[in-house]
């Protein structure tokens, strides 16, 4: 497949991965995933044999070793690489996953249904990937900004802010979850969970 399809594939896989794992470094990871999605072809350009050494699954070993240094970069590299391998498996010639141990190509689909590089089939696959990227990118961004963390509380916080009486000096400007564990025989424990980091005043009366 062409490089742009590989980049789109890596983008989709990385976005869905960050969405699933709630991983926060979205832009940084996308950069690495996209670069490593064209890594197999670059390697094959250097070695001179297309779909040879660069397309071997054994490249995952050094990528995993990178994980000991930086897990985020390693994950992005692996995702970019795997997306390339996966998309190449869908093509006519397949991908020699076990190269150089075995030169047999790993393929998918019936021979007639496989995607030919540079044809309309590839373009339709690209547009399908792009179509999927849009919703997952929205979801991943919302996950990144923590929109899903506690949506019901967020909506309550917005509501209480609008009802705040600004004139009063004792006005409660934010919501709190207060759990009181009161026991006569032992010390009294008060747990305060802050919803908004900007809160400066906490009033507790008659525990």
């Amino acid at each position, binding site marked *: 497949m062409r490089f742009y399809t590989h980049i789109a594939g890596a983008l989709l896989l990385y976005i*869905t991965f960050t969405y699933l794992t709630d991983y926060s470094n979205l832009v940084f990871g996308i950069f690495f995933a996209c670069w490593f999605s064209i890594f197999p072809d670059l390697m094959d350009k250097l070695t001179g044999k297309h779909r040879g050494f660069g397309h071997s699954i054994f490249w995952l070993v050094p990528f995993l070793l990178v994980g000991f240094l930086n897990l985020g970069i390693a994950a992005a590299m692996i995702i970019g690489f795997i997306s390339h391998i*996966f998309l190449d*498996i*869908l093509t006519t*010639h397949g991908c020699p996953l076990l190269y150089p141990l075995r030169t*047999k*190509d*790993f*393929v998918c689909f019936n021979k007639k249904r496989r995607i030919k590089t540079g044809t309309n089939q590839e373009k339709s696959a690209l547009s399908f990937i792009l179509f999927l990227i849009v919703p997952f990118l929205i*979801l991943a961004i919302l996950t990144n900004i923590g929109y899903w963390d506690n949506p019901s509380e967020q909506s309550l916080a917005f509501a209480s802010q609008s009802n705040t009486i600004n004139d009063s000096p004792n006005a409660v400007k934010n919501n709190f979850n207060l759990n009181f564990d009161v026991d006569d025989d032992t010390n009294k424990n008060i747990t305060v969970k802050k919803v908004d980091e900007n809160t400066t005043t906490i009033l507790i009366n008659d525990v």
Partner: protein
Amino acid sequence: MIISCCMKLLQIQADIRNGQNLMFYDKNVYECFSRLKTNFLCVFYHDPLPIKVRLIDITHVITGQTKTFLNRLAVPDLTQLLVEKLQSKTMIIFFNHFERLTDRSMQIYNQLNSQDNIHFICSFNVNKSLNSEVYSFFKTFKLVNKDVYELKHKNEINVSYAVYAGISIYCIVLYLKTGFSLTSATMVIGGIWFALIIFRTLIYAGGRL
């Protein structure tokens, strides 16, 4: 392209001079015939059968005798006449559809092949199992475009079901994650898919522009 073609031609000429029969996969050997006919005594026919007609064609090229006369001769006589008239000249017989050879025609071609100065350049394009006699003749050939043949008949491992299962499991996880996150997230996905279905329906209805 031209350099590669010339290199191949030089290689073919060298192989022929070394007494090697050459075989092409899925290629019309007429192209090769037209390039080599200036250097060698060449005969081309598309189909190796019927054998008598082909022997008449070859003998006609060598002896120059009329086809009416040659038609009266039997196959063994034609073969003998061909070998006698050829003397020490090198001749190349070109034909396509090697896979159509029969046991009977094989005997004649084997007889011609036993001559040191008669060589064959043939092609085949159907993946058909050859019987033992034809295969023994086939083994005397060198497959020139082996890469093309291997590309079309290479052994491959089809991992379709593993891929389908992998994609399905990944989609299940994605769906569950989205579904458990917030109801509105499923609405977003559903809405976008609904728009996709509408879009595809319109493309289908409108046809390719």
